[in-house]
Structure formats: structure tokens, C-alpha cells
């Protein structure tokens, strides 16, 4: 493109307004939505949970597996802020260390599952054939109860966090795939997608640049929902010996243990539950802030 277009167009129109150069403001980016109001609150909440987990070795008064003689299921006190559990361990320490387990699940397994699901959803829904195949496969995976998936996977991979990771991947993938597909079906009918099509943009381009960004809102909400579900899947799997093994703590198993002692030690589950609530609240706030930024 040696020749410029503009010398043909001979610009002789009115000189630019004097204040026009101040109009250089970038449009509000996604990130700026997270630097104020709801977005900030959400980021702080999630950040706080993550920080608590990462700093657990510094913050925790006890080792998460230390059994303190005599401190059997005692209530919150100065010595044990959140009380102790049935085998005499400090709940605060366990809760803090428990976050670390769930960081992997919540911030790795769910996002990866979501990403793959979105990818599959995007690509498959573009053509009728792949769409039908993908949907049916999703049906199949969704139809298998998590428990069965977990037991079966454990048979191959052995128990542990890795299995939890894969199970959550398997569970989340179809959810996000399907959600993406719905958005695709609506968004691809929009004239601006057609406009991109006309300038020669390939399917992948249209999907990536137009369809996906315009389908983000529900996906973000689902992300928050999935993350909280992941904690409970992890808890259930740990309890069944398919996930994290005792005595390693995890939020999910702490909540389960706490609920079992609901009548005797109602405070037991409070700590981990509060963390999950904070996490979910944070994520929902972030998703809301992002949605608002996109709408604005």
C-alpha cells in the first residue's frame, strides 16, 4: 500500500476543534471496571481468600495436622479462634491450609474446564454436524453422576487432587460448552457478525472476535457458580477417599465435617463456609462489574 488514500481525498474541511485532542480518552477497559466499585470489592474479596491461602504457613498458629492433646471439639476461644475439630486440630490452621487445596481446584480446574468447554462450544456449534455430535457427547457426560465419574476416574488415575481436577474438568466442560453454544446461536445472527463475515473473516475469527466477547456475561456468572460447586465436589470426593486424603485439609472436607457436627459444634463449618461465601460473592461481584462495564 504505497499510496495513501488520503491525498486523494484532499482534506480541506474545517480544522479540528481545539479541545478535540483532549478527547483521546481510551474507552473504559475491562481492567478499569475492576479498579473501582463492585469490581474492586470483588477482586479484593477473591484476593483476600487467595492471600489467606498463600500465606497460610505464616498465618496459621498450628500445623494443620497437629493433634493438640485434650482439645477435642472445643468452641472458638482465644487459643483457637475457630475452635478445634474432632481429632483435636486447630480449625483456623486447617481452614487456612484448606484454601491451598482449593486454589488448585477453583482457580485452575474450573477455569481450564471452562476454557476448554467454551472452545468446544464455540467451534462445534458453527456446523450442524459437529454441533449435534458435541451436544450428544455433552449429554452423555452430563448424564453420568459426578460420583460415578469420580470413582471411574480414580480407578485409572488413583485418588488425589489430580483426580478431583479431572473430575471437575469433566463436569464443567459440558456446562460451559452448552452455555457457549446458546450464546453463539443468538449472537451469530447479529448483523455485525455478518459484517465481519463479509470482509472475509473466517469462522474462527468471527467466533473469537465477535461471538465470544458478546457472550461473556452468562459465562462469567456460570464461572462463579461452578467455582463454588467445585469446592463441594472436592469435599464430597475427599470424603469418599477419591480426593484429597486426610489428614490434609480442604475447604470442602472441612465443611462436610462441620455439617456432621452441626448439633454439637455449630461453629465448626463457619470458617470454611465464610470463605466460600466470600469467594462466590467476590466472583459474582466481578462478573457483575464486568457485565456492567460491557453494557456501558
Amino acid at each position, binding site marked *: 500500500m504505497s499510496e495513501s488514500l488520503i491525498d486523494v481525498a484532499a482534506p480541506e474541511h474545517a480544522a479540528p476543534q481545539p479541545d478535540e485532542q483532549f478527547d483521546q480518552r481510551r474507552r473504559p477497559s475491562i481492567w478499569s471496571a475492576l479498579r473501582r466499585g463492585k469490581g474492586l470489592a470483588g477482586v479484593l474479596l477473591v484476593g483476600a481468600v487467595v492471600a489467606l491461602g498463600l500465606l497460610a504457613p505464616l498465618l496459621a498458629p498450628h500445623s494443620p495436622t497437629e493433634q493438640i492433646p485434650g482439645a477435642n471439639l472445643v468452641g472458638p476461644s482465644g487459643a483457637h479462634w475457630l475452635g478445634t475439630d474432632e481429632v483435636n486440630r486447630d480449625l483456623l490452621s486447617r481452614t487456612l491450609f484448606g484454601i491451598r487445596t482449593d486454589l488448585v481446584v477453583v482457580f485452575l480446574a474450573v477455569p481450564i474446564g471452562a476454557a476448554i468447554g467454551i472452545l468446544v462450544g464455540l467451534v462445534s456449534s458453527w456446523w450442524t454436524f459437529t*454441533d449435534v455430535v458435541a451436544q450428544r457427547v*455433552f449429554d452423555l457426560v452430563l448424564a453420568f453422576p459426578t460420583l460415578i465419574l469420580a470413582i471411574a476416574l480414580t480407578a485409572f488415575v488413583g485418588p488425589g487432587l489430580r483426580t478431583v481436577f479431572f473430575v471437575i474438568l469433566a463436569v464443567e466442560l459440558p*456446562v460451559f460448552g452448552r452455555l457457549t453454544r*446458546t450464546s453463539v446461536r443468538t449472537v451469530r445472527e447479529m448483523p455485525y457478525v455478518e459484517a465481519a463475515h463479509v470482509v472475509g473473516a473466517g469462522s474462527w475469527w468471527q467466533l473469537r472476535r465477535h461471538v465470544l466477547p458478546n457472550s461473556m456475561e452468562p459465562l462469567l456468572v456460570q464461572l462463579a457458580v461452578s467455582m463454588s460447586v467445585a469446592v463441594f465436589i472436592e469435599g464430597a470426593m475427599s470424603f469418599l477417599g477419591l480426593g484429597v486424603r486426610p489428614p490434609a485439609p480442604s475447604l470442602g472436607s472441612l*465443611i462436610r465435617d462441620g455439617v456432621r457436627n452441626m448439633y454439637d459444634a455449630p461453629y465448626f463449618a463457619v470458617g470454611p463456609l465464610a470463605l*466460600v461465601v466470600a469467594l462466590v460473592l467476590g466472583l459474582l461481584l466481578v*462478573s457483575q462489574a464486568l457485565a456492567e462495564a460491557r453494557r456501558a
Partner: protein
Amino acid sequence: MGAYLLRRLPSALVVLAVASFAIFAMVRLVPGDPVATLAGPDASPEARAEIAAELGLDQPLVTQYVTWLGQLAHLDLGTSYRIGGQVSDLVADGAVNTIVLTIAALLLAVAVALVSSVLAVVLDKRWVNAALSFGNTLAIALPTFVTGLVLILLFAVVFPVLPAGGTPPDGFIARPDIAAQYLLLPAVCLALGAGAALTRFLTEALRTEMRQPYVTTARALGISRRRIVLTQALRNALPSTITVLGIQFGTLLGGAVLVEAIFTWPGLGGLIEEAISGRDYPLVQVLLLLSVAVFVAVQLLTDVVHAWLDPRVRIGGAA
């Protein structure tokens, strides 16, 4: 639409066929042994061999699979290893309870989502939004086994106004008022999470719709915000919500396992769990196959509803 469903029928059947194989394989790949589980640790080897023969587990796998398919073709779902009864009877019994529970929860979730998201968007007040956000967060963040226990503690133990669990003694039809009281707690417990998620989706979608130019047109005509939300924005926001509902339906079925246990609601959720832990192959297989069928049906249904709600959507994939 009927034509569409008819066109989808073959693929659905293929799915079921593939699923039957996948399920059969999966169930047997899962370690554990129905005979050992049934007979317990103290049984003698002869006893176990005899039981295996009785259950047909001494046959080669291919034979077992073919036999099972043959039974299915004759609409015979087989006999449960553990319970001894016909799988079909067991499934039928459990299905009634599960269907009643999930449908009730589904309706409740939809009602909650509709009411609260419409309220949030129509009123558009800070405190309403904050309250809803908080409620939503709690409902999403608290697992069913926590909410279930709290509900029981509150409404059955501390203030004994509702039964702590169980199904209505005279069935669902004879005395609907009693049945409703038995249903209320489990349905609420099951619906909370799904309802909250739905609310979030719907509110977000409604808010997006409220920015569309057609809403401005409607406002310029002097149509009230409430009416616009109810008759126009909602209709536009529903298609995507329907899919979410389809997905949430899966969550409901999954959550039913826990809720059924907490509220002593003998349904398919409990049945499948029991069947899995007892390695009751015939029962597991049938339940899984049923589950696949339900998911395929729900998926097709959401597609149809989606296309029905939005005239622009081409049904089933791109042209």
C-alpha cells in the same frame, strides 16, 4: 418443530446405543465387585462363586452385554442384584418421587428467578439489588447439605411447622395439602442454588436487554418500565435463560442425591448412589441410561423452546 424432533430421533437413538455401550463398559471398569459387596467379607469362596453364577457374572462380558441389550429390546430392565426386585418397579417407584421433587424444585427455582430478577430490574433500586445479590451469593455458596440442615433445624426442630423429612404417607394425590407440606422443605433446599443461579443469569440478561434500542422505542411510546420488562425484555432474555435452565436441570438432578438423603426422600438419586456403592450393575445401567435419555430430551426441548421464543434462531446448527 415436530418435524425437527422427528429428524433428531435417529441421532438420539444412536446416542442411546452408544451410551448403552459406554455405560456398560464404564460400570464394569469401576473397580469393586458386586459379589464381594453382596456377600460381605466373611463369606466363603464357594458362596461367592455360587452367587456369581446366580447373577450371571461368570459369563464373558460380551455375553453379558448382549444379554442385557436383548432384555432391553424386550423392555425387560432386569433384576436388581441387591434388592432382588424388578429394576423397572424400583425405578418406577423412585422416579415418581424424584420427578415430583425435581419438578417442584424446578418450578420453584423458575418462580424465584422470574420474580426476583424482574423485581430487581423493574425497581432498579440499590438496596433491592444489594439484598438480592447477597441472597443469591448465599444460595450459591452454601451447599445443599448445609442449607438442608439449616432448613430442617429451623422449620422442623426449633419451630416444628413442617416435617423434617420423608414422603407424604398417603401419597401425593390423596391429600395434596399434606403432600405439599412434605414437599416444601426438600424442594426449597433443592431449588435454592438453581434458583439463585438462574436469577443471576436472568437479571444480567434483562439488564442487557434494557439497553437495547427497542426498549428506548417502547419507552418513547410511554410504556411503563414494568410492562417493558414483563412483555418485551423478558421475552428477549428468555432464550438464553432456557438453556441455563436446561443445564441447571442437570444440577438439580445431581443435587437430588444429597437432598434425597437429607430429607429421606426415596428417589432415584438415593437409588443410584446405593446401586453404585453396591455395584448393582443392572440397576446402575438402567438408571444411567435413563439419565442419558432425560438429558437428550431436555436438550432437544430447550432447543425447540429456544427457537420458538426467538424467531431469528435457526433450529439446530448453522445453515
